[in-house]
């Protein structure tokens, strides 16, 4: 039953717009940020050239604007590791875990509670579909697929940044940040499915989980709990491999995986508890 469920989830994922949508989202974000910063650099240069051609007062004004842009980019460089390649890469990967997650969650609404709302599971339930047969395939397929695609997205972002900025990034940084993003996305996808399957309301689940992913890290920081939890990974992907606290990274990864498994078990438990049995005596459906 679980194997059939996995096959069913793969069909659902690949046959609609969903898989293509996730790929487009990830690749789109991967391309967007490195290209955006590069284009800002180029724009600053072109504005400076234009100012020189015009000359006079206009040249001073233009120079002022160019200096502002350069100053902003200098700040970004120092914030994100000393190069524009790092800026493009890290903002891109970070965006995969925030905006990317939101888009992916919207794309997966049909399977994270949408089936229950549409009552598509009535006939399979009556046929004998068990909670495990329904829930487990979702937690096997989607967190892993989204994690994998996020990892690949990070690699693509890093590769594009290196292509544009002449190999300023080192491979270990690219892999490290991509891995952090992947594990974080595995956790977030598991959390999303827990809320979606438990409530049967995919739309509200998107709001709860996305909103929670913004608020919870702030809360944890205010309570000085900024280590050894999955949200740390979202921060950690901004740092380089050499500068990262490896203990924090390893434990945060382990906690993220454990919490993902707990999400699965909770979803299974809630789905089982929600099962109705109106019969009396020996008979069962």
């Amino acid at each position: 039953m679980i194997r059939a469920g996995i096959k069913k989830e793969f069909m659902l994922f690949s046959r609609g717009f969903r898989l293509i949508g996730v790929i487009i989202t990830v690749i789109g974000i991967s391309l967007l940020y490195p290209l955006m910063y590069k284009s800002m650099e180029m724009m600053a240069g072109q504005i400076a050239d234009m100012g020189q051609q015009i000359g006079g007062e206009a040249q001073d004004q233009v120079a002022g604007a160019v200096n502002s842009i350069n100053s902003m980019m200098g700040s970004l460089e120092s914030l994100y590791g000393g190069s524009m390649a790092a800026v493009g890469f890290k903002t891109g990967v970070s965006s995969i875990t925030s905006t990317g997650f939101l888009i992916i969650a919207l794309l997966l609404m049909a399977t994270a509670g949408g089936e229950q709302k549409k009552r598509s599971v009535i006939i399979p339930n009556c046929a004998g579909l068990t909670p495990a047969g329904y829930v487990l395939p979702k937690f096997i397929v989607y967190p892993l697929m989204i994690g994998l695609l996020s990892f690949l997205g990070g690699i693509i972002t890093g590769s594009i940044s290196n292509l544009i900025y002449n190999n300023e990034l080192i491979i270990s940084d690219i892999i490290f940040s991509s891995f952090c993003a992947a594990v974080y996305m595995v956790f977030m996808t598991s959390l999303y499915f827990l809320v979606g399957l438990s409530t049967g309301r995919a739309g509200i689940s998107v709001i709860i989980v996305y909103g929670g992913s913004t608020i919870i890290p702030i809360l944890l920081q205010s309570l000085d709990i900024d280590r050894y939890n999955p949200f740390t990974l979202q921060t950690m992907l901004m740092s380089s491999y050499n500068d990262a606290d490896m203990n924090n990274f390893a434990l945060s990864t382990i906690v993220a995986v454990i919490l993902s498994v707990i999400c699965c078990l909770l979803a299974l438990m809630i789905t089982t508890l929600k099962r109705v049995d109106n019969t009396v005596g020996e008979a069962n459906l």
Partner: protein
Amino acid sequence: MLHIKNLHKSYGAFEVLKGLDMNVNKGDVYGFLGKNGCGKTTTMNIVSNIIPKDSGEIIFGKENCKVGYLPETPSMFTYMNGYEYLDYIAACCSYKGDKKKRINEVINLVGMAEGGKRKIQGYSRGMNQRIGIAAAIFDNPDLLILDEPTSALDPQGRAEVMGIIKQLADMGTTIILCTHILSDVERTANRIGIVRDGRMAVEGTMAEIKDQFARNGKKIVMGIFGDPNAAVQPINKCTGGQFYFDRQRAIFEIPLDFNENEQVRAQQILNEINSADLTISLFVIENKTLEQIYMETIG
């Protein structure tokens, strides 16, 4: 096969089922009737464990009774085709036999051998119903519940689906046919139950119920060759004006009282018609129709 006792169900402040009793025997085709919103679907959802009951008993006559359920407007996985969907259903019911053979059997039974290759997304309502029936009967259920299987279908679709249901009934499947289309029930059901105000108002075999309601329902239906107006006077004479003339069908309907000897009455009328040199084209004594019984029951 299924016994329901004193079933109660409310949606908030609105009580839908107010102590429903129901008895379905093995091999029955049970027509479950009632007007829209009377609780038919609620009852079937409770029996199928889709929604919880408030109180009452649901007792199956068999241990581990397998129930197949086709809900009203079935929703299926539209990204699959019919064969793939049934393959998934086979996994859900942990089908032990030759899966492919069974899929072909049920898909041929419902006439979807070709249609089954297309994605469910592109199915008409009739095709949806047919695949839904295939899924519901896949594991040879002991009890098959069909909730409004022919509503929203065109006449051809209805005829096809009812044909399938008749086949299943002939194969001995116990079926609950939940519908408000009386002609479907009259054609296939041997037992009916009519729900009114959240309770079972009438239940029994077709013959029992028609007999029960026949007391004030029998009538003579008569037609003559030629101008029907010629029969008005002789009929008037022997009925005292207690008859109805259906102009559209050009037939006379003469109600029979409960205590009346129908043979004597019939002979009386025939004698009058013969005396008037008229020729009978139609002469039959009818019981109350299911429609009349239904309308009388639901009020």
